[in-house]
């Protein structure tokens, strides 16, 4: 399952020995402990784990969204730019020019009173200083690119008129508006129906082919990661416990935690199916 990997001077995202601590003295907690991860152009890398494993936190550090007061050591390079120790201006530049992020609940990230077109145009107007008309034109082309039907009409609609799947496409269109090289997806299909999830995964795959996007896909669903990603990192308690090509990790897991996670997947719970009880029926 190797994707069309177009390597342009190294990986788009390179995380090395990343350590993140919050709190001080007695209450100090290590959230991430020596995390390493890389993602090249045209590659989809899955970051899999349960709640509290640090997968979302790892993603957030790549766009400079570590919690306030967190102490970071190690290295997070996005398109060659170091974010650990970088100033606010440099972090903002990365977020504006290189990396974009989409989330589980698109509805929490839109203004319900803002039309879809204006929402997607925001990024264009802010980061490129485009005028209203030019931005509106580009918005229609972006909505079309993410597979939304009748983009001109759609741009005039409000978020509540769209289904969850359509709204997630809008979020992706908005993320693409700054021409990023890195797309970070945090449980971006978790809240969607399975048929809609398939559509969004199809879209992400197409974007990595056509735009050569590097995509880091955070999910709790190992089946989904194995089906959609080139490589998988499995995280537990702030540590990457296993990594490798998606199929290898899926079919020949080496770390006990990966095996435990795989065994817990509902698709493998067959052995635990209830045995019919006698006499009660």
């Amino acid at each position, binding site marked *: 399952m190797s994707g069309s990997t177009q390597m342009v001077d190294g990986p788009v995202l390179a995380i090395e020995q990343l350590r993140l601590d919050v709190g001080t003295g007695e209450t100090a907690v290590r959230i991430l402990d020596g995390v390493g991860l890389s993602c090249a152009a045209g590659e989809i890398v899955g970051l899999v784990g349960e709640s509290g494993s640090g997968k979302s936190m790892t993603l957030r550090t790549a766009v400079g969204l570590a919690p306030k007061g967190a102490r970071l050591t190690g290295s997070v390079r996005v398109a060659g730019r170091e974010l650990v120790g970088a100033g606010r201006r440099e972090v903002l530049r990365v977020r504006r020019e290189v990396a974009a992020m989409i989330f589980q609940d698109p509805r929490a990230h839109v203004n319900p009173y803002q039309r879809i077109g204006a929402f997607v145009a925001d990024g264009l107007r802010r980061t490129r200083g485009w005028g209203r008309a030019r931005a509106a034109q580009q918005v229609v082309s972006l909505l079309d690119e993410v597979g939304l039907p009748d983009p001109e009409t759609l741009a005039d609609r409000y978020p509540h008129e769209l289904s969850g799947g359509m709204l997630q496409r809008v979020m992706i269109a908005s993320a693409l508006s700054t021409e990023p090289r890195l797309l970070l997806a945090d449980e971006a299909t978790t809240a969607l*129906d*399975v*048929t809609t999830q398939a*559509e969004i995964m199809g879209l992400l795959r197409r974007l990595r082919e056509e735009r050569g996007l590097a995509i880091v896909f955070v999910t*709790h*669903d190992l089946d989904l990661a194995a089906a959609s990603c080139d490589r998988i990192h499995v995280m537990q308690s702030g540590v990457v416990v296993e990594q490798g090509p998606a199929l290898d990790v899926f079919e020949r897991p080496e770390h006990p935690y990966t095996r435990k996670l795989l065994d817990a997947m509902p698709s493998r719970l067959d052995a635990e199916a209830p045995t019919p009880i006698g006499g009660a029926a």
Partner: protein
Amino acid sequence: MSILTVDGLSKSYDHGRVQAVTDVSFELAQGGTLGVVGESGSGKTTLSRLITGIEQPDSGRIVVAGTELEARTSRRARHERAGIMQMVFQDPYQSLDPRQTPEEAIDEIITLHGGLRGAARTARRREVLDQVDLPERARRALPRDLSGGQRQRVAIARALAASPRLLLLDEATSALDVSVQAQILRLLARIRADTGVAIVFVSHDLEVVRSITEELIVMFRGEVVESGETSRVLRDPQHPYTRLLLSSVPRPGWDPDQVSRDRRTFLRQLA
């Protein structure tokens, strides 16, 4: 004999403009397990609200253990129904009293439905909390100090405390981490084997439903499009929607674009 009979059930909202459930019928034998699977808007949640009596149907009948659910029931009838049918929902934090420890919550139900007091109540409480493997320390803690999995164990224990013959679980494992979900599913299988309680398991997750039920109904836009033995339906789906649902489940080598094409074809044929 059946523990639950649903016959020609229909429910609409917004003065008939939204048909949430249309002519749904099925029967669940005593001690049986039924999965209700569907996507958002399929009517599975409305169906579960009708069965639990939270909402009243426009037409159709619901018979639980031989007694038909009436629209306006006496306090006594509701009490009797609660002794037969209990529910567990997705978010235990909302269904648990934040000021009650698990022991207190269980005691309340035992007193209400078993009329037990003193040592008999303590013994029954222990039995129920043992059944859900709730650790000793958690039994005297408040819900906010429990993990999500522990809270769901308490919700299940509270349902069991009424000694029901039917347990309705609506997305009861959907908010849990997969490893915790697996524990709860195994727990439910064991409880069923031990107590013979019948289970209706409502879920959007085909794989979860497969792991725990023997009978299955698939819902789409308020209607049952396919029903039968769970293993048969999933091995040899007859309805195009069931086939679409199955092909949507991600697995290595799947083609999400093919799923999208199949979905469009299916929706076109419907129109």
